[in-house]
């Protein structure tokens, strides 16, 4: 009897959690399918009478009534994809090397370096936004996917290195030592032993990097001007004019813009949990 009560309570809690997580997002979806008139009606009707697919049609299919921002969406998505992918690759590549060092070798110099890398993470990036802007401007590499990638890498490397170091710390050194006795070079042990064993943790770091880079807004806004490099968050912000905000279009664009990171996170959460499991105990 107690067991049944317990199960009921459990499922109730799960339902509450689901509602809390999904309700605002559901509202966003509903908004994107409504017309503005319905959205500003009082009392609010939760399900729109007419499903309005205009927004989705404009963005996904283009067409002559689409606003420029809608037509630009596809290019913006491509830019976001490129930026997020490169940032992830470079941070994982360079970061895993550094994390390996910090994990496997103790020295004062390395400790200090690690600490200073973490320290650079603590400075509010806003304050260096203009100096970075000046650099990019003088080098004529504003409005460029490459510069955005570099800037994001420098912002995110500290935490990527920190995470990966934690995961590497979990792998016992004996395995590498055994392999080295068998003639493996150190780098080979990294490649063939440590990384495969910490794959879940690495996967979770990679997903983290991808999502964070995809979603970044303010620096993308500053450093991109044209479609050559504009990312999706910036485009989503453009569905408005001097006085008004086109909420229906913005929510449509927002949902579409959020699909890739949501998929990455939701579908690959298995790896995230696994990864955090492997590395989480020590903290």
């Amino acid at each position, binding site marked *: 009897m107690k067991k049944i009560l317990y199960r009921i309570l459990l499922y109730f809690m799960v339902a509450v959690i689901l509602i809390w997580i999904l309700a605002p997002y559901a*509202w966003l979806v509903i908004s994107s399918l409504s017309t503005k008139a319905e959205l500003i009606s009082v009392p609010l009707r939760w399900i729109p009478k007419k499903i309005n697919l205009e927004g989705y049609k404009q963005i996904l299919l283009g067409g002559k009534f689409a606003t420029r921002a809608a037509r630009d969406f596809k290019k913006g998505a491509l830019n976001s994809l490129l930026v997020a992918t490169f940032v992830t690759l470079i941070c994982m590549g360079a970061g895993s090397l550094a994390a390996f060092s910090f994990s496997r070798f103790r020295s004062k110099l390395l400790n200090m370096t690690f600490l200073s890398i973490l320290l*650079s993470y603590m400075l509010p990036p806003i304050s*260096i936004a203009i100096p*970075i802007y000046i650099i990019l401007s003088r080098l004529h590499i504003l409005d460029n996917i490459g510069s955005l990638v570099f800037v994001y890498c420098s912002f995110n490397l500290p935490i990527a290195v920190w995470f990966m170091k934690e995961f590497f710390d979990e792998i016992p050194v004996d395995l590498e030592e055994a392999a080295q006795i068998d003639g493996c070079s150190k780098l080979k042990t990294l490649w063939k032993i440590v990384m495969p064993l910490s794959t879940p943790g690495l996967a979770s770091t990679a997903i983290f990097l991808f999502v964070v880079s995809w979603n970044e807004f303010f620096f993308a806004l500053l450093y991109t001007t044209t479609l050559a490099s504009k990312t999706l968050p910036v485009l*989503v912000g453009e569905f408005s004019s001097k006085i008004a905000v086109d909420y229906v279009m913005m929510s449509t664009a927002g949902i579409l813009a*959020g699909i890739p990171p949501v998929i990455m996170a939701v579908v690959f959460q298995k790896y995230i949990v696994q990864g955090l499991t492997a590395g*989480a105990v020590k903290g």
Partner: protein
Amino acid sequence: MRFIDKFSAYKSKRLFYYSLIIPVIIIILLVLIYPLVHSFYISFFNLTLYKAAEAKFVGLKNYIDIMKSASFWESMGRTAYFVLGTVIVEIILGLAIALVLNQKFIGRTVVRGLVLLPWALPGVVNGVMWKWIYNANYGALNALLSQLHIINSYQIWLKDPFVALNLIMAANIWKETPVAIMIILASLQTIPSELYEAADIDGANPFSKFRWVTLPLITPVVATTFIIKAIWAVKEFDLIYMITRGGPQEGTTIINFFIYLQSFKFLKFSYGSAIAYMVTILVIVLAVVFVRRTVMQSVRE
């Protein structure tokens, strides 16, 4: 091995490991070294970007002015409230939800996946969404509460500075809790079930099991999560930029936004840089204190 060989083996080992960190160092330095050094240097001047020619060296004046400035301390106070409020609630909620998600039930994998959704949404989208939800005339919050007869008439949520701050915190909590859930859940999963079984044998009830088995084992993880989330909370910008822009009055001007105003809007670049460095120093001091305590705790365990 002879000593010389051992030593040179050590040296080449050291060289090897040092060289591995070079890519990271280069990337970070390349982008950050000039801005960091430049803005630190500039913080000792009184540069305002549209009268660049009039900038002159003023030493510590900016730092002293900041310490005397009421708006700065008010903003720091708000930020402290914001950071502590959101992080503590996120961790408590994260723990509670993680405990539920740690149980077995149908559809557990799906739910665990969906739980990440608020965090995966772009910050812009989050901002626009919450702004509309809190809208005084058409917002979903008003509609919901009045249709449930919890309130009589539509409220103007974002009118009062303190209420607005709390509502922004609520939005931030919704966005950031998934990370806490994931980390704590992962940590919960590493606790061997034998420990629980042993506790059962000793006749422990669920509450004691939590208090004496679970809690101690996840404390280090929770502590680390606390630090990371605190750092992220201080950096929070997108929500404020999209929803309230620091208002009403100065109610939601937390320190990151305050720096944006000074550096970007007023173009008082030196002053803004000085604030940033002061904040960094404070954050570092707090983090060091915290880390020390945590390290000492885990050493004890």
